[in-house]
C-alpha cells in the first residue's frame, strides 16, 4: 500500500555530503509533484559533528516539519544512536552494511561493493529515492542539475551509481510503502526562506546590499550576489556590521534602494546606524535572521528572541515597521512591501526571520512578478530646486519630498544632529519639536498600511492559537489536527508585528475562550507587546527556546500538558 506522506531524515557528519543528498532528494520530490518541508539541523562547524537534513513530503499541502521518522538514511553510526528512538513503527533505516541498526528494521547496503568511495552518496540517494517510489529518471535529472557542469566522466559515474542503487533496491529492499503518485503540478521552484527574501529584494528594485557574513543571514546576501550582475546591484561585503549599515545608508541617501542582512549580534552593532536612519529619514530594509542568543548562543539554530530588540534597538525615538514572514511567499511579498514602505515613509523597515525558515526548503510556484513595482527612490519633483530645496520640509504626513544628491540642482543635506528643514544643525527647542513630531507622525501612516493578522479556523472556536513569523505552519497544522479531533481551534498569525492595529485582532481575541500565544522565545515577546498596546493578556503561552523549531506535535503536547 502506498502512503500519502513520509518523513525522511538524512543524518551524518558535516562534510559527508548529506546536504547534497538532501537537496537532490528534495528537488526530485518537488519535480515529481510532492509538497515538501525541509528542516536542517547543523552544528557550528565545517566538518564532523552531527547534522541532519529532514524532508517531510506529502501529496497534499503541508506546512511544518514533523516528529517521528519513516525513513532514516544514516551515513554513520552516530546517526543511528541519536535518532533510532525517533523511528515510527514500520520505519526503515538505510545504512551501510558496516553499521549496526539495533532494533530497527534495516536495509543494509553494501556501498563499497556497489561503487567507489566518491559515489557512495549517490547510491544512498538512489536507494532512498527508490524506496520513496521516485523514478530513476527524476532523481537523475535533479542530480545532474545539482552537480552542474562537471566532467562527462563524473556525470557517467554518478549515473552508474544511481543505476546500481536502483537495481539493488528493487531487488533487495524490504517492504516499504512508497509515496502515492502526486497530482500534476505546474512549474515549481525549490528554495528556502532566505532565497525568497533575496528574490523579493531584487523584485523590489534593490540596488545596494552591504553585509558582513553571519549565520543564518548569509544566504540572503549570497542570493543577491549571485544575481547582482544581471540585476544591476552593487553588493559589498563590509569590514563589519557598522560599516554595512552606514554604507547602506550612504547608498540609500544617494538614491539606491538599500538593504542589510545580519543576525542578532550583527544587528546589535547596527543599532546606532539604525538610529541614524531614523533621524536622517533614510530608507533602509534590515533583514534579521534570528538565532538563539544571548551573544553567540547557538549560532546555527533557530529562535524568535529578537522581536523586542528589533522594536527598540537604536537610541532615541523614531518610527519603524517590522514584518515577520511565515512562509516563502510571505518572505518574498513582505520583502517587496518592506522596500516600498521604507521609501514611502523614509524609515527603517525590518524583515524578521529565523534560521528555521531561512533553511527550510519548500517547493512552490515561482513568485508572480505581475503587479510588482520597483521602488522609485526619491521624488523627481524635488530634484531641481537648487539651494531652496528643503530636505526636511514639514508636511502633514511627516514625509518630505526627497531629492537625490546629484540627480538635479537640489542640494541635499542630511544630518544626524537635530536639524532644521534644510538639514542644518539646530539647537532650537521649537525646531526640535517640529522635526521630532514630524518624524514620529510617520508612524500613523505606517499604521494605516499594516497587514492584518490572518485568522483561520472557526470564528467561535474555544481556543485561539496566536503566532508570528516562522511558526505559521506548525500552528496551522496543530489546529487542523485539533479540529479534526473535533476540538474547535482557531488560529491567528501576525506577519507584521509592528505597528499593531488592535482593531484588527482585539475583538476576536476578546471573543475567544482561551488565547494561547505560540512563540519561539522564553519571554513571550509578542504576547507582552500585545498587552502593552491593548491591555489584553493572553491566557497561555507555548514557547520553545532550545534552538529547535516548532512542530505540530510539540504544540499539541504542550497544549495538552
Amino acid at each position: 500500500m502506498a502512503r500519502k506522506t513520509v518523513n525522511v531524515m538524512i543524518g551524518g557528519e558535516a562534510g559527508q555530503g548529506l546536504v547534497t543528498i538532501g537537496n537532490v532528494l528534495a528537488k526530485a520530490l518537488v519535480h515529481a509533484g510532492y509538497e515538501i518541508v525541509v528542516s536542517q539541523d547543523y552544528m557550528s562547524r565545517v566538518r564532523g559533528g552531527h547534522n541532519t537534513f529532514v524532508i517531510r513530503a506529502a501529496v497534499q499541502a503541508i506546512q511544518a516539519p514533523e516528529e517521528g521518522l519513516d525513513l532514516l538514511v544514516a551515513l554513520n553510526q552516530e546517526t543511528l544512536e541519536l535518532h533510532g528512538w525517533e523511528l515510527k513503527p514500520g520505519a526503515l533505516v538505510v545504512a551501510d552494511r558496516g553499521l549496526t541498526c539495533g532494533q530497527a528494521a534495516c536495509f543494509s547496503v553494501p556501498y563499497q561493493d556497489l561503487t567507489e568511495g566518491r559515489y557512495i552518496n549517490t547510491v544512498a540517494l538512489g536507494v532512498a529515492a527508490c524506496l520513496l517510489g521516485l523514478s530513476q529518471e527524476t532523481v537523475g535529472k535533479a542530480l545532474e542539475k545539482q552537480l552542474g557542469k562537471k566532467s562527462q566522466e563524473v556525470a557517467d559515474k554518478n549515473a552508474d551509481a544511481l543505476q546500481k542503487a536502483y537495481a539493488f533496491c528493487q531487488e533487495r529492499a524490504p517492504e516499504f510503502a512508497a509515496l502515492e503518485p502526486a497530482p500534476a503540478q505546474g512549474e515549481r521552484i525549490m528554495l528556502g526562506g532566505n532565497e525568497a527574501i533575496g528574490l523579493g529584494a531584487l523584485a523590489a528594485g534593490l540596488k545596494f546590499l552591504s553585509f558582513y557574513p553571519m549565520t543564518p543571514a548569509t544566504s540572503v546576501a549570497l542570493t543577491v550576489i549571485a544575481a547582482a550582475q544581471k540585476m544591476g546591484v552593487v553588493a559589498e561585503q563590509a569590514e563589519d556590521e557598522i560599516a554595512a549599515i552606514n554604507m547602506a545608508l550612504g547608498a540609500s541617501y544617494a538614491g539606491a534602494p538599500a538593504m542589510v542582512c545580519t543576525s542578532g549580534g550583527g544587528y546589535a552593532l547596527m543599532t546606532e546606524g539604525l538610529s541614524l536612519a531614523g533621524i536622517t529619514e533614510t530608507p533602509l530594509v534590515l533583514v534579521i535572521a534570528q538565532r538563539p542568543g544571548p551573544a553567540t548562543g547557538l549560532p546555527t539554530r533557530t529562535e524568535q528572541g529578537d522581536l523586542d530588540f528589533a522594536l527598540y534597538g537604536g537610541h532615541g525615538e523614531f518610527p519603524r515597521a517590522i514584518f515577520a514572514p511565515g512562509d516563502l511567499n510571505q518572505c518574498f511579498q513582505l520583502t517587496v512591501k518592506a522596500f516600498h514602505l521604507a521609501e514611502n515613509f523614509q524609515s527603517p523597515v525590518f524583515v524578521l526571520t529565523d534560521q528555521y525558515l531561512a533553511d527550510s526548503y519548500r517547493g512552490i510556484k515561482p513568485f508572480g512578478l505581475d503587479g510588482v513595482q520597483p521602488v522609485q527612490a526619491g521624488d523627481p519633483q524635488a530634484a531641481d530646486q537648487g539651494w531652496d530645496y528643503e530636505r526636511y520640509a514639514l508636511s502633514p504626513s511627516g514625509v518630505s519630498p526627497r531629492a537625490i544628491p546629484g540627480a538635479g540642482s537640489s542640494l541635499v543635506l542630511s544630518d544626524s544632529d537635530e536639524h532644521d528643514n534644510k538639514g542644518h544643525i539646530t539647537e532650537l527647542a521649537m525646531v526640535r519639536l517640529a522635526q521630532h513630531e514630524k518624524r514620529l507622525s510617520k508612524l500613523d501612516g505606517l499604521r494605516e498600511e499594516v497587514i492584518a493578522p490572518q485568522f483561520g479556523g472557526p470564528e467561535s472556536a474555544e481556543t485561539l492559537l496566536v503566532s508570528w513569523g516562522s511558526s505559521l505552519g506548525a500552528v496551522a497544522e496543530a489546529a487542523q489536527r485539533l479540529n479534526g479531533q473535533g476540538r474547535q481551534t482557531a488560529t491567528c498569525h501576525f506577519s507584521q508585528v509592528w505597528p499593531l492595529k488592535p482593531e484588527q485582532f482585539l475583538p476576536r481575541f476578546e471573543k475567544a475562550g482561551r488565547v494561547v500565544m505560540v512563540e519561539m522565545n522564553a519571554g513571550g515577546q509578542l504576547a507582552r507587546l500585545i498587552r502593552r498596546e491593548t491591555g489584553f493578556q493572553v491566557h497561555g503561552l507555548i514557547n520553545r527556546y532550545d534552538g529547535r523549531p516548532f512542530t505540530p506535535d510539540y504544540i499539541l503536547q504542550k497544549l495538552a500538558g
Partner: protein
Amino acid sequence: MVKMEDYGDFETAWCPGCGNFGIRAALIQALTESGLAPHEIVLVSGIGQAAKMPHYLRCNGFNGLHGRSVPAATGIALANHGVKVIVNSGDGCNYGEGGNHFLAALRRNIDITLLVHDNQIYGLTKGQASPTSQQGMVTKAQPEGQRSRAFNPVATAVANKVSFVARGFAGDQKQLAGLIKEAIAHKGFSLVDIMQPCVSFNKVNTWAWYKERCQPLPADHDPADWHAALRQADKFGDAIPTGVIYKNEERKPFSDHFEILARGPLFKQGTDYGALQEIMGKYA
C-alpha cells in the same frame, strides 16, 4: 564657471583662531579651481568639530555618525560614482572610532577623498587624547599623560600601499588647496592628513609648533618610491614633511570593479524583470 561664492558664506561654531577655517578656505579654493559645482559633490562627515564642515559649504552633505563617515561615503560613492565624494572629519573620528573603516578604505581603494582635520585631540568633547595625540600629552582624561604611542596614519597608509596620501597644514592654504585639488582629481582613494591647530584644547601642538615643523617635502622626493615614502611618513618630530608622500598608480579605483556601474549611477538603473524571471528559473 564655478565661483567661490557659490559655496556660500556661513556663520560657524568653531572657535576664533581654529585651524578649521584655513581648511575650509583651502577646500573651497580647491573645489572652485577644480571646476566642481556644489551639486556635483557630496561632503560627508562624522561628528566632531571638523565634521561640522558640511554645514559650512553650500553643497550636498551627509553629516552622519561619529567615526562612520568613511562607510557612508563608500556607499554614496558606489551608488553614485558621478558625484565627487569628499570626507571631512577629525582624527578621533577617522583613526579612533572609525579606525576599522580607515583600514578598509585603504584596502578597497574606494573612490573618495578623505580630509582628516588632524588636531591630535578630541575637540568637540573638550579635549581628551586622540589616537594621534603625542604620548605623554596631559589632558583632563589623561592627567598622567597619554599612555599610548601616537598612531601614524600616513605610515599606515603607505605600508598598505594606499593609492594617494599627502600631508598638509591648515596654516599653508596655498599648498593645502593644491593637495586637496590633486587628491580630488586622483582616481581611487586619496588621503590628506591635515595638521590643524586646536587653539582651545591642544596646548602642545600649537600654531607655532606646527609652523616651526611643517615643511614641504624635498624637491627630489619620489612619491612612487615606497621606501622613500615610508622614510618621510616616519618623520614627525623636529620636522613634519608636507606634500604628496606616496602615490601608487597600480591600483584600480574600487568602482571600476563593478561592471554594472559603467551603465551609470545606480539610481538611474531600472529593474529587469525578465532577468529576474530567469534567475528564479534557476531554482526549478
